[in-house]
């Protein structure tokens, strides 16, 4: 007994130490690159290319201005936004009804369907992108906003289905039944009861689809030539663009994604917590 009594506190202390250092390590792992990115994006081109580097940004916007005025950047930015918006609309348009069906109805093959939804994530994008590029050339979807948005939708759709599934599952069916008895058709009950309750979560799911498209680079680089998205544009220019352009571009990509993900984090946790029940 005396042994455990003396050992326990030191063990607990060691465990605590491991716990805290683990957290610090994780924070550094994620936050340090973002911090360095922001420092460089907010410094003058001279500072970015010079040496030694400073850990405190000079809050100079000339790098960002250079980035925005760079030939093709605004066009690429506009393409990114258009592709992401179309992806968002398609993902929710198909994903939300699928999520609703999964949560409300029992149908043969439901479990298989759920599994297949997740399975789509198992195919590496290069495997899909090359045959798709050939196919898009044939049907004339190559180098178009819609073509790329379709590919991005296949990436975002599983998440849209899972998030909305957990969302609708969290809304008791009894509420819809009450609406039926109070004079609603199935569609009216959905519109007047389920939709208002699910709206914040659906918006979150839409934002997530937007971010997936916004950050995607491989399919964008393969499937577009003239109408590059920002990610594809930056990758294409990696070889010859100046360092400060890369940093400013990276910041322009990371910042919206960070803000969006932070805004909808509650619903993303719900996806893993409830949808995988």
């Amino acid at each position: 007994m005396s042994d455990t009594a003396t050992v326990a506190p030191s063990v607990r202390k060691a465990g605590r130490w491991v716990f805290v250092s683990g957290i610090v390590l994780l924070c550094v792992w994620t936050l340090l690159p973002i911090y360095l990115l922001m420092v460089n994006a907010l410094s003058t081109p001279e500072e970015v290319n010079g040496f030694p580097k400073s850990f405190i940004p000079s809050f100079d916007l000339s790098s960002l201005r250079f980035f925005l005025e760079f030939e093709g950047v605004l066009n690429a930015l506009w393409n990114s936004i258009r592709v992401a918006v179309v992806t968002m609309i398609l993902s929710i348009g198909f994903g939300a009804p699928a999520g609703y069906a999964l949560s409300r109805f029992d149908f043969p093959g439901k479990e298989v369907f759920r599994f297949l939804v997740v399975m789509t994530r198992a195919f590496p994008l290069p495997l899909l992108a090359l045959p798709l590029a050939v196919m898009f050339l044939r049907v004339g979807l190559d180098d178009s906003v819609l073509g790329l948005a379709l590919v991005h939708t296949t990436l975002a759709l599983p998440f849209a289905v899972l998030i909305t599934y957990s969302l609708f599952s969290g809304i008791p069916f009894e509420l819809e039944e009450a609406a039926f008895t109070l004079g609603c058709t199935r569609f009216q009950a959905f519109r007047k009861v389920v939709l208002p309750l699910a709206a914040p979560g659906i918006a979150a799911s839409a934002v997530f689809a937007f971010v997936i498209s916004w950050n995607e680079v491989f399919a964008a680089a393969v499937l577009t030539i003239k109408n590059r998205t920002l990610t594809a544009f930056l990758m294409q220019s990696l070889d010859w663009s100046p360092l400060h352009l890369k940093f400013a571009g990276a910041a322009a990509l990371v910042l919206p994604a960070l803000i969006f993900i932070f805004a909808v984090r509650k619903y993303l946790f719900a996806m893993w917590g409830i949808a995988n029940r």
Partner: protein
Amino acid sequence: MAEIQIKGVAKSFGAFTALHSVDMTISDREFMVLLGASGCGKTTLLRIIAGLETPTKGEVWIGGRRVDHLPPKERGIAMVFQNYAVFPHLTVFENIAFGLRMQKMPQAEVQRRVHRCAELMHIEQLLKRYSGQLSGGQRQRVAVARALAMEPEVILMDEPLSNLDALLRLEMRSELKGVLAESKTTAIYVTHDQVEAMSLADRISVMNGGHIVQSADPVEVYRNPAARFVAGFIGNPPMNFLPAEKVGSGRYRVAGTDVAGPDTDTRIDYAIRPEDLTLAEPGQGLAATIRVVEPLGAHTLVTCDVDGASFRAVIDSDSRVNPGDRLSLAPMADRVRWFDKETGLSVQ
């Protein structure tokens, strides 16, 4: 005017049969309680009447109109759910007004009805709140007010009080009875609580295994159970049963005493309610050995051994009895009932 007729309604979920061909008529303004243990089919029957479930077979008529093919909104019903189903994104006012707005009722009439129903359920001061700001009892009141505002021909209630705590349940029970009597609607009320059923019902339908076992007024169900199941389900503590051995035409031997009974050739059991026993002189009545004594204030519940079987009696709380004591329990002769050993049905 809404009489409800259930004609041969059956419901199966895959291989499981929830309801076996149920027939039932509920007259206009009657308060009918469907009583049974969970899984007996009572909620399924209610949901079929509401139109939330489609019967596998049979017809449902409300107010002389066949409705089993109609959606809930065309049946003239309103429903109160077990978990209240108060819409969380609407205020109490909008919750009560929801059904009226669906009917495109003029605003002035909506106002009038909502305020009248809120007043009836004592929730006028809550009209601007959301359901998240209400207690369970208050939510239940909103749900009832919402149903009443529809001025339905039939009001259906699915265990509406089972989520409330005991004291609140008692209060809501009597209030509900008053409000519904005043509203003059036909009511069907599902519960597993026999006390609730007894206190609310004009008529109780006891259900078991997808069948209606007995449908009668509360006192009749209590005094003359149609089957052993009903006798054991209703009454707390339930009826006592003892095996009876036939010794002659209409004569039976029960726990060592001779008793007159029905003249039948089927094997039957003797049954008596615990409160229909009185303490008798030694040698008269049933010989019992006390095992447990539970003083309940108004009376004392004793659990005894009679002829090797467990047997309960409710006796006066002034009687000083202890475990191990021997008693003689005299049954009130006109309260003795008999049940067929095989079928469980009452034998007269």
